[in-house]
């Protein structure tokens, strides 16, 4: 029986050191703290790597998204979950009041957010404040107007919602299948501007229904998010009601001949805002995340979000995108004095915040939408 006596040679020392060096990252990873999960309720795309990977790496957190489609769906998901389920909630601005009324969100400390950096038009967004109390912080928005195939219609023809009745697009007008944006746009065409296309009397509502039904012979279909993309991309639909650059902006990057404009009658603004979920135990890091999204770096990411582009409500966001991607700033009108600049459109009273119906119920609008679809 032989016993080999261990002895240290230069070779074994070097081999051991190299092995230790190679395995160090694994050991480090094992010892590192697990990332803190942050439960996010949002539209698709907001917790994807292009938006949150950097923040996750810097703060050792991991976003766990629950994506919804539509404000009703969002409210139902919260209603059916115990308090504290969602740490951060991204909602359409018109649903913030309902979130607040139902007690689903925490009050926020306004001093922690850079409201001085917001364009004055967006500093006190309707429904986000009750007196001095802040409930939600707007992070991005977009414009809904006439979206069209540039081979079928000229920009001039698209400068009115009457473009949807143009014989060139008969049978090729699509609707994004949600009543609020489409009916809001057609309400503008009917001249319902003051106080808002969503705040209309019964007579105006009757006239709006009649106008909408007159569009039916032009309509080729009603589409969800994916269907809207493919029908415009394949030129199966040549004009689309109820959408804007959030769809055509993505398609343009793929080279599709589509564009969106805000017509003379005006456009509808969609707005997305972050709130802190009621009972969340991670309010500090969620606040930090919202601050990050409002920073110039975060706003550049938001403007160019892979799922669907948005616009920035902050001055520094505009400056940052002009430096980081001048072509995108030009395309999306984030330049002072630009024809399609949202600030210019607001000043000209050609832009209206999307809202829920004020003099009718959501049910009334929804029932009519079903009737319109089967007409």
């Amino acid at each position, binding site marked *: 029986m032989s016993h080999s006596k261990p002895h240290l040679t230069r070779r074994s020392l070097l081999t051991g050191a190299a092995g230790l060096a190679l395995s160090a990252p694994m050991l480090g990873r094992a010892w590192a703290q697990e990332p803190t999960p942050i439960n996010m309720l949002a539209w698709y795309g907001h917790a994807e790597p292009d938006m949150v990977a950097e923040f996750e790496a810097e703060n050792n957190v991991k976003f766990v998204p629950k994506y919804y489609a539509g404000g009703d769906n969002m409210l139902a998901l919260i209603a059916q979950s115990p308090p504290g389920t969602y740490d951060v909630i991204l909602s359409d601005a018109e649903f913030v009041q309902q979130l607040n009324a139902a007690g689903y969100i925490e009050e926020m400390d306004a001093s922690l957010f850079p409201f001085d950096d917001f364009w004055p038009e967006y500093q006190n967004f309707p429904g986000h404040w009750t007196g001095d109390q802040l409930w939600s912080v707007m992070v991005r928005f977009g414009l809904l107007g006439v979206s069209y195939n540039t081979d079928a219609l000229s920009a001039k023809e698209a400068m009115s919602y009457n473009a949807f009745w143009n014989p060139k697009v008969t049978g090729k007008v699509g609707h994004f*299948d949600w009543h609020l944006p489409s009916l809001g746009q057609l309400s503008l065409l009917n001249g319902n501007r003051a106080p808002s296309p969503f705040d209309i009397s019964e007579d105006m509502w009757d006239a709006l229904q009649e106008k909408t039904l007159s569009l039916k012979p032009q309509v080729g*279909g009603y589409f969800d998010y994916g269907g809207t993309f493919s029908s415009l991309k394949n030129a199966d639909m040549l004009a689309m009601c109820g959408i804007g650059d959030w769809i055509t902006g993505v398609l343009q990057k793929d080279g599709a001949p589509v564009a969106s404009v805000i017509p003379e009658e005006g456009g509808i603004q969609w707005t997305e805002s972050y709130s802190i979920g009621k009972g969340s135990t991670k309010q500090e890091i969620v606040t930090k995340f919202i601050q990050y999204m409002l920073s110039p770096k975060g706003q550049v990411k938001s403007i160019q979000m892979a799922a669907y582009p948005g616009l920035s409500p902050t001055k520094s966001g505009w400056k940052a995108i002009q430096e980081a991607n001048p072509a995108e700033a030009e395309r999306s009108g984030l330049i002072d004095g630009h024809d399609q600049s949202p600030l210019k459109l607001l000043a000209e009273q050609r832009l209206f915040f999307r809202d829920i119906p004020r003099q009718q119920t959501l049910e009334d609008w929804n029932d009519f*939408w079903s009737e319109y679809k089967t*007409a």
Partner: protein
Amino acid sequence: MAKRPSVYPYVWRLPLLIWQGLFFIGPLCLMVAMSFWLVRNYRMEPDFVFKNWDRMLSRGFFWDAYWVTFLRATLAATLASLLAFPASFALAFRTSETVRRWAIFFLIVPFFTSYLVRIYAWQVLLAGNGPLNAILGLVGLGPFTMLSTGFGAMVGYMTLVLPLVVILQTFSLAAIDRNLIEAARNLGANPRATLFQVIIPAAKVGLIIGFIFAFILTFGEFVSPFYLGGSNPPTLSILIVDTTKSGQQWPRAAVVAVIMIVTLFLAAFAAVAAAYRRRS
């Protein structure tokens, strides 16, 4: 001494009863009950009110969607039965056993792939600038609008049901006693009379079962009318989705679903009655 009844057959029936109870009767009862519930603040609350029934059944759009669904399903079932028959006839009477076996295998193969994926493939093929229009363009035809039309939805329905109807018809036709056909010919019946007076009556059960399967599957279909038909006009399945999307009105969607189930039961019973009715 009376013979003790054996529990053996009941034990073997038990799994089926449990299965049907858990996955059919139970959910069905829950759905009927749900149709009387109410939604408050986006939450369903158990109740017993007729509000949902009244609201849905008094709306014109519900009945429009109902008749669209009914007529489309009837058309799809008729079309599938007619298109399938020549193929089934050939497989049953004009091919060898081996060829028939292979044909059945290839008819089953499409079910191995996702139906949704096949519909997406049709979306590409039927697009305005898609390959089908490109081919038609080569012979100076088109382009035709095929997507977001009734035609598009019908293509989807056929994708779903045609292989199944061919299989059912083939089994039914192949099972006909050949002596009956021989006898008809010996008695001087021409091919047309043999087909209509011997073959079709003999295969009646299978043909009706094929038709009703096609009707049931297309009546409740969501994917084709949505992705190929452009929801224009919407069918009952699309109405269910719309109803749940807006205001989370699951109880109203349950009303639509109950009406659909009642319709399908009636259709199925009528079909079975027609299939097994004795000739007077």
